[in-house]
C-alpha cells in the first residue's frame, strides 16, 4: 500500500493531487523549481525539495532529479499530474526500474498511444472509428476512387504540413484534380516534400471525450463524456459534462467503444479518449491522453467520484471499486479555466503579483487553484491560475450558477480572462448548447464587445479611486513618508492606531 507519494508537478494540479492524498492519509512530497518556492503546493506538502531552476528541463522535466528526490524521501510512488512528464514513457520505465510506482499506465501503453500513427493503427485494429482517409502517398490514379470511398467533403493534406500550408478542402469532385496538384506544389514549395494524403473533412466538429478507468486486472469502465469544444488555438477554455450535443444513444456507444479501445491496449489507470464528433453524431478517434486531464473535475462533479483517489487505488494493484452499472451521471457540471492573460489585448500573458482574491463560495461551486493574496504568478509556466467548476441539477441551472460565481470571482493586481469567460457563458450558441470547435472564431466579435452600463460603472470607479486618494492625502502624518509608493490607506489607518482594517469614510 502506498504510504508516500512524490508529486512531479506544480501549481493547481499538484495541490489537487495532494488534497486527495491528505484525505487518504498518504504523505506527500513536493518538488519545486527555484521560482516556485512560494507556490502553494510547496507549503501544502508534508515534505518539499527544490530540484532546480525555473527552466523545466532543469526541474519538472528532469527525470533523474525527480527519481533521486523520490529515493531521498522514500516515496513509494510518483504522481506526474498532467503535462511535464505525465506521458513520458521513458520516465514511467525509469520509475519501474527504481521500484517506484508510476501513477499512470505502463510505458508500453503510453508508447502505443503516444505516437499518432501507431495510435491510429491500434484504434483501427480495435474497431474504433478513426477519421476516414489514408496516411499513404496519394497517387493521381487513386484520387477519385478514394475520394468516393471516403465521401465528400475531403481534405488533401501534406504529410509534412502544418499551419494550413499544403492543405486543400474539396467539397465538389470537380475541384479534386486542381486541389491535389496545388496542394502538392504548395507542399513542395513550403516543405520540400510533396507527399499528400486524403482525409475526410469533419464539418462542425465537436471535441467530445470519454473518461476511462482501467485496473491492472483487465477491468475497464468509462465515466461518460466531456464536451470540450470551446477552444482557442487548440487550448480548451470551457468544458462541460455531459455534452449538450450528443444524444443518450451516442453517449453510450462512445463509452462502449472507448472501453473496447482501452481493453485492446491493456490500459490501466485513468485515461481519456478524445473524439471528433460531426454534426450527424458520427464520432472519430482523435487521440488518447494517458493521464489525468485538466478538465477532469467536471466528471468528478457529475459522478461523485474522486479520480485521483481511484488512480491511487488502481496503482495499489486493487480492482476497480465500481462496475459500469454503478456509474451514473447526475446533473450537470461546467468548468472555466481562469488564466492570467489580457483577453482584450490579444490574450497577452499577464504574470505578476496578485493583489487580492475574492473567491466565490456557496452552493455548487468548486475551485481548484494555487493562487493566493500576494502570490507572484511566474512568467515561466503556463498562465492557468486555477479552475472554477460549478455543478447543478440541470444545464440551465449550471449556467446560472456559473454566471453567479464568475461575478463573485475577483482577482486584482494582474489581468485575467474572467470577463471573457462571462461573455462566453452568455453567448447565444453556448447557452443553447449547440457549439463546435469553431465557436470562439465564429463569436470573436461578440466576445470582444463591452457590456452596457459603462458610464455608470466609470463614475463608480472614479469615485473609488478618488476616495482612496482622499484618505491617503488628508493624512496628518503624510510629511513623514518619503516614499509615496506605499500610501495604501491601510498603512495609514494602522499608523492612526485605529486597529481597524476597514474604513468607513
Amino acid at each position: 500500500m502506498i504510504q508516500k507519494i512524490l508529486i512531479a508537478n506544480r501549481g493547481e494540479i499538484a495541490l489537487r493531487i495532494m488534497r486527495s492524498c491528505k484525505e487518504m492519509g498518504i504523505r506527500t512530497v513536493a518538488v519545486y523549481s527555484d521560482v516556485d518556492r512560494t507556490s502553494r503546493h510547496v507549503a501544502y506538502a508534508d515534505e518539499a525539495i527544490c530540484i532546480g531552476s525555473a527552466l523545466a528541463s532543469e526541474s519538472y522535466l528532469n527525470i533523474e532529479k525527480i527519481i533521486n528526490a523520490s529515493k531521498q524521501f522514500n516515496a513509494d510512488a510518483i504522481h506526474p499530474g498532467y503535462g511535464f512528464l505525465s506521458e513520458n514513457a521513458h520516465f514511467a520505465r525509469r520509475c519501474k526500474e527504481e521500484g517506484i510506482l508510476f501513477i499512470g499506465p505502463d510505458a508500453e501503453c503510453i508508447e502505443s498511444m503516444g505516437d499518432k500513427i501507431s495510435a491510429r493503427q491500434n484504434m483501427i485494429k480495435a474497431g474504433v472509428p478513426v477519421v476516414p482517409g489514408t496516411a499513404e502517398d496519394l497517387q493521381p490514379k487513386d484520387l477519385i476512387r478514394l475520394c468516393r470511398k471516403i465521401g465528400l467533403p475531403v481534405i488533401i493534406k501534406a504529410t509534412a504540413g502544418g499551419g494550413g500550408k499544403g492543405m486543400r478542402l474539396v467539397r465538389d469532385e470537380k475541384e479534386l484534380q486542381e486541389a491535389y496538384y496545388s496542394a502538392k506544389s504548395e507542399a513542395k514549395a513550403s516543405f520540400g516534400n510533396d507527399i499528400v494524403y486524403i482525409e475526410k473533412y469533419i464539418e462542425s466538429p465537436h471535441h467530445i471525450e470519454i473518461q476511462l478507468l482501467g485496473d491492472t486486472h483487465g477491468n475497464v469502465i468509462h465515466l461518460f463524456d466531456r464536451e470540450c469544444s470551446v477552444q482557442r488555438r487548440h487550448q480548451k477554455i470551457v468544458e462541460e459534462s455531459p455534452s449538450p450535443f450528443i444524444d443518450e444513444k451516442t453517449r453510450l456507444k462512445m463509452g462502449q467503444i472507448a472501453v473496447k479501445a482501452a481493453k485492446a491496449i491493456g490500459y490501466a489507470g485513468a485515461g481519456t479518449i478524445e473524439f471528433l464528433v460531426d454534426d450527424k453524431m458520427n464520432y472519430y478517434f482523435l487521440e488518447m491522453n494517458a493521464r489525468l486531464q485538466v478538465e477532469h473535475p467536471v466528471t468528478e462533479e457529475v459522478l461523485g467520484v474522486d479520480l485521483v483517489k481511484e488512480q491511487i487505488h488502481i496503482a495499489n494493484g486493487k480492482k476497480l471499486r465500481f462496475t459500469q452499472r454503478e456509474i451514473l451521471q447526475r446533473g450537470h457540471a461546467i468548468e472555466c479555466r481562469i488564466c492570467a492573460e489580457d483577453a482584450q489585448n490579444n490574450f497577452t500573458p499577464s504574470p505578476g503579483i496578485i493583489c487580492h482574491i475574492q473567491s466565490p463560495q456557496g452552493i455548487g461551486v468548486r475551485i481548484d487553484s494555487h493562487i493566493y493574496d500576494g502570490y507572484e504568478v511566474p512568467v515561466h509556466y503556463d498562465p492557468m491560475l486555477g479552475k472554477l467548476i460549478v455543478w447543478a441539477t440541470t444545464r440551465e441551472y449550471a449556467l446560472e450558477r456559473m454566471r453567479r460565481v464568475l461575478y463573485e470571482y475577483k482577482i486584482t493586481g494582474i489581468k485575467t480572462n474572467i470577463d471573457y469567460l462571462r461573455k462566453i457563458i452568455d453567448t447565444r450558441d453556448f447557452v443553447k448548447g449547440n457549439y463546435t470547435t469553431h465557436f470562439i472564431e465564429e463569436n470573436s466579435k461578440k466576445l470582444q464587445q463591452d457590456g452596457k452600463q459603462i458610464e455608470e460603472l466609470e463614475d463608480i470607479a472614479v469615485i473609488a479611486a478618488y476616495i482612496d486618494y482622499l484618505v491617503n492625502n488628508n493624512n496628518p502624518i503624510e510629511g513623514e513618508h518619503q516614499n509615496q509608493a506605499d500610501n495604501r490607506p491601510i498603512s495609514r489607518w494602522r499608523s492612526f492606531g485605529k486597529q481597524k482594517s476597514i474604513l468607513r469614510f
Partner: protein
Amino acid sequence: MKILVDNKLREVELLSKEDNNLQVAANGKTYDIDVVMSENGFCSIICDGRSYNAESVKHANGNYTITTNFRNFDIELFNTHRNIRKSSDSDNVLQSNMTSPMPGKIIKVCVELGSQVKKGDALFVVEAMKMQNTYMATRDGEIAEILVKEGDAVAKDQALLSFK
C-alpha cells in the same frame, strides 16, 4: 480634481461630508454616497440605495486600476503637484525607446543595428507563460541600439531598443 479614466479626461470633486454621507460630483453628476474601504482594496459604495462594489489596486506611480462588475478602469489623478500628462503622447510623439510590455524571455531578435523598420514590422519574439508573442514596431525608423539579445530574460518596462 482632474482625473484620467482610460485616457479620457474627467472631473471629480468632494462637495460635502456629513457623518457617513458624502456628496461627490463626478463627470457632471452628483452622487450621494456611503463608502466603506478595506485594507486590501475592496470598496463598497452605496449610492441612492444601490450597492456597488469596486476592487482597487494602487500602483507604485500613484495610478489606480479599479475593477467593478467585470470591467477594469485605469485611473490617473492629478493633484496640484502633478500636471496632466499629454494624454495623446503615444499618438503624436515618436517614442525613441521601445520597452517590454511584460516580463519574458527574448526568443528572437528580428532586426539588426541600423535596420530600417516600418510600423508593424516584427522586432522581437518574446516568450512568457509558455506562449510566444511578437513585438511589433509602433513607428517607422532606424534602429539605433538593441539593448537585449536572444535568450535574455527581460522585466516589464525594460528598454529593448532605441530608434535613431
